[in-house]
């Protein structure tokens, strides 16, 4: 049967279980003999541990086991590894201080785990944890990256001078400096890219169990990449054989990057499950999520754009201090370097770019990839400074962008990336049309009559998805491969189970991937099952992050499908007594070209498993193929966002009146899911720009935004509905022509909103998030300046 699925908004097959309460999240699992863990955490930002006394807690009812940093040290358990080694401008490797799974000697941020208490019930574990006595010697703390670099700042790690993890640079400094010397105009801005706390609504959760029967471990964990979790935990931390450890990431309630990483709790529970010989469950309370999930962003940046008299970009110079937090999380070192500075060309043919990044340890939660990971920070720099330059030079911001767009592809940027394809005018033109930019002056005038300030802002973003190829990533410091794996298991009846190393936690892969498979094989989607998230089922995988799943994971499946079809063609040639080269495969039929003689896919499958009439001299029975796909390049989604706001000068309240997103994601498999990804990304980006900010108190080092009461998550009535559309230039180097859509919204929307607000207020810049208080204060300051 020939049912086209690609490009169709097929309803999600995941939804039925989620809508009926039949989802299977980690905390939903309760195993026979289940115990519960509670972590004793540092209440201090920075302190020496004088003693940890557990005797009273051990006597509490229901306690099964208590373990501390000393126990971990005695068991010779290694610290958590960082997956990306950056070399600094001095040629030296970055500083990688130990990251113990339970604190040893010192605690370095509020929430640092000190001990774990395991008990029969969660309530008993909580009660007993209260009885663990930890004696601390308080130390001064530092939470800000710029402060941490100053002489005399407290040292987070005694062996890391000046708290400097590395200073790294990219681009030609001499050529950039020379271009600045000849510039007609230089625009300078200093930015803070605010710290964000990811907050998937499902908190992190772990359930670890050990089997004496075969000396094996099973770890259920809310995680985005179970194979990587297993590899890091086995090979680097616990020294366990991988084949004795199964990691299952069942339904996962959102990740946004924060569940990529190997966390201390995962390792502690796995190790302790053998010690107590019982399954142990831990689910983060939201307060723990705030304190211990890896945070995002937190950059201080100074940027300068050099332009000639006509507004052509000559050079961009960027200096960034990136806050790493107290320890290096799994991908932390790559985010403000490889995933940030390489994106600073944006959509523009800027001939010279130089960027220097200093990564800094502070007494805060580790900072790592969060939706967009480096690319939102880069886009913010580029799109804010381009907008500022346009205003300074009195050039229409869209016209200035257009004047500098890259127009011929492939395009080699001065910061390492090779863009394969794109059409930036197409997305800009469509966005301008949808946003009715022509009608904006009238709307602004009308708002002014009501005493309101109206502003319009653009962002023309680019991102790089599906980090690749492994050989290049390796030369840049990656300690892992960045391919993906897929397996297509055709059953004797022609039904198909597909195993993917990608992981879905909201993205709808079970639907999208099934659309691809059904289309390629010409069978019904109902005959295709997608399996992910279990190392005992899936051959291997690098998981889901960086908008890589369809471009990399989907391609691995396509490669495996190609092998299935190739073998099917051989079987069909045998059955139809034709030459293999004469067999065509289309619409689920293997046909002798130019004839009506054919065999359906299911017949071929049956023949493969009941091989009575079978070319045994040429082929093995069965129809099961796998493939590993290592892309030759990144993909480069791009687009234009236009935001229009109205500001009430009396209150500082900003209303987003319209928001248009026009994206180029290449080919689209399921437009409904893609639109949903855009909506979600937009609100995370607009949340950064308008609501969210992770704030540590500079005196005490305490996280002052540690609950949903203090950290302003965007709610439905903070946000508008969106107008979204796409323009497509298919990716040139993967067979689906797809680019990735998961992060775009979060990348392009913060500068679009801040460009709109600064336009409304008539100011050059102020720091995100644009809360009413900040907007109001900015306006007051601008008015005072004007009066003076």
């Amino acid at each position, binding site marked *: 049967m020939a049912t086209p699925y690609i490009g169709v908004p097929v309803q999600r097959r995941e*939804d039925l279980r989620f809508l009926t*309460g039949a989802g299977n999240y980690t905390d939903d699992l309760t195993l026979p003999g289940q115990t519960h863990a509670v972590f004793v955490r540092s209440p201090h930002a920075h302190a020496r541990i004088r003693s940890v006394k557990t005797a009273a807690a051990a006597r509490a009812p229901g306690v099964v086991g208590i373990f501390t940093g000393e126990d971990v040290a005695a068991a010779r358990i290694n610290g958590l590894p960082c997956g990306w080694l950056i070399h600094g401008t001095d040629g030296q490797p970055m500083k990688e201080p130990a990251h113990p799974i339970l604190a040893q000697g010192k605690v370095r941020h509020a929430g640092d785990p000190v001990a774990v208490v395991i008990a029969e019930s969660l309530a008993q574990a909580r009660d007993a944890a209260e009885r663990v006595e930890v004696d601390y010697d308080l130390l001064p703390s530092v939470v800000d990256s710029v402060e941490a670099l100053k002489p005399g700042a407290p040292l987070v790690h005694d062996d890391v001078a000046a708290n400097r993890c590395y200073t790294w640079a990219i681009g030609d400094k001499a050529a950039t400096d020379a271009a600045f010397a000849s510039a007609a105009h230089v625009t300078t801005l200093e930015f803070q890219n605010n710290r964000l706390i990811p907050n998937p609504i499902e908190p992190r959760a772990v359930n670890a169990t050990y089997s004496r029967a075969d000396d094996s471990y099973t770890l259920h964990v809310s995680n985005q990449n179970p194979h990587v979790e297993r590899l890091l935990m086995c090979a680097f931390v616990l020294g366990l054989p991988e084949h004795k450890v199964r990691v299952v990431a069942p339904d996962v*309630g959102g990740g946004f990057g924060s569940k990529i990483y190997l966390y201390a709790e995962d390792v502690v529970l796995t190790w302790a499950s053998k010690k107590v010989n019982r399954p142990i469950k831990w689910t983060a309370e939201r307060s723990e999520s705030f304190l211990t999930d890896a945070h995002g962003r937190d950059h201080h940046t100074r940027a300068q754009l050099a332009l000639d008299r006509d507004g052509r970009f000559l050079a961009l110079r960027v200096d960034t201090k990136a806050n790493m937090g107290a320890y290096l999380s799994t991908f932390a070192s790559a985010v403000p370097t490889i995933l940030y500075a390489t994106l600073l060309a944006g959509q523009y043919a800027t001939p010279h770019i130089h960027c220097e990044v200093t990564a800094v340890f502070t007494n805060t939660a580790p900072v790592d990839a969060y939706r967009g990971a480096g690319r939102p920070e880069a886009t913010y720099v580029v799109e804010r400074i381009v907008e500022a330059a346009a205003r300074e030079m009195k050039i229409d911001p869209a016209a200035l962008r257009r004047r500098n767009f890259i127009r011929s592809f492939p395009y080699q940027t001065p910061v390492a990336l090779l863009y394969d394809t794109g059409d930036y005018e197409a997305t800009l033109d469509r966005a301008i049309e949808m946003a009715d930019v022509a009608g904006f002056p009238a709307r602004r005038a009308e708002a002014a009559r009501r005493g309101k300030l109206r502003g319009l802002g653009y962002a023309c973003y680019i991102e790089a998805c599906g980090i690749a190829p492994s050989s290049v990533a390796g030369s840049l410091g990656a300690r892992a491969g960045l391919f993906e794996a897929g397996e297509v298991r055709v059953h004797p009846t022609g039904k198909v189970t597909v195993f993917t190393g990608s992981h879905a936690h909201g993205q709808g892969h079970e639907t999208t991937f099934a659309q691809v498979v059904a289309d390629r094989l010409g069978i019904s989607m109902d005959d295709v099952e997608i399996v992910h998230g279990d190392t005992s089922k899936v051959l291997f995988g690098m998981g889901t992050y960086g908008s890589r799943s369809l471009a990399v994971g989907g391609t691995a499946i396509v490669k495996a499908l190609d092998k299935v079809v190739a073998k099917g063609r051989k079987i069909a040639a045998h059955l139809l007594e034709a030459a293999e080269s004469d067999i065509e495969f289309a619409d689920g039929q293997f046909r002798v070209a130019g004839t009506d003689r054919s065999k359906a896919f299911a017949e071929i499958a049956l023949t493969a498993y009941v091989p009575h009439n079978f070319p045994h001299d040429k082929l093995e029975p069965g129809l099961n193929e796998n493939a590993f796909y290592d892309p030759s390049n990144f993909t480069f989604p791009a687009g234009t966002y236009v935001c229009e706001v109205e500001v009430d000068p009396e209150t500082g309240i900003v209303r987003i009146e319209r928001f248009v997103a026009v994206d180029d994601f290449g080919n689209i498999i399921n437009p409904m*899911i893609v639109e949903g990804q855009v909506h979600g990304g937009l609100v995370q980006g607009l949340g950064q720009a308008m609501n969210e900010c992770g704030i540590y108190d500079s005196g005490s080092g305490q996280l002052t935004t540690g609950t*949903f009461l203090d950290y302003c998550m965007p709610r439905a009535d903070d946000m508008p509905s969106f107008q979204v559309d796409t323009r497509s230039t298919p990716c040139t180097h993967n067979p689906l022509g797809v680019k990735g859509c998961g992060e775009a919204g979060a990348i392009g929307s913060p500068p679009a909103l801040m460009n709109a607000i600064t336009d409304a207020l008539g100011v050059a810049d102020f720091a995100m998030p644009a809360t009413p208080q900040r907007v109001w204060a900015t306006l007051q300051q601008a008015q005072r300046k004007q009066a003076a």
Partner: protein
Amino acid sequence: MTVKVSMTVNGKPAAAEVEERTLLVTFIRESLRLTGTHVGCDTAQCGACTIHVNGQAMKSCNMLAMQAEGKSITTIEGIAAADGTLHPMQEAFRQNHGLQCGFCTPGMVMSAIDMLNHYPDPDEATIRAELDGNLCRCTGYHNIVKSIQAAAKTMR
């Protein structure tokens, strides 16, 4: 100290001996093993645990099990028809891609049903304002609003 609690859950009697401090959500998830009701925070802000108590949306993390004594509780597992036909609100979320990771979804659906009991024909601003007690991190709310608008049409 333990106490015996009994109530009607999804139309059936339910009883258990629980510690007095047991939250209603814990009773539902752990004692009754109805794991569709989720816990997403510890400050009654996210709404993932929203259920109906005597027909009204309540956050089950914010009540003791004891406080539900004798009351009628409906959870996400109890709103579809006996033959499995989805409640119009569930169906509207499915038709309109009103969910992604699914974790906030049960609470969203339970809140949305209660919302339409109060506002049978809500405009977008009303829907957004009434969703104040439910956080979603995936959808950006756009399709949740659409879902509730669609359900309002079919339920009218």
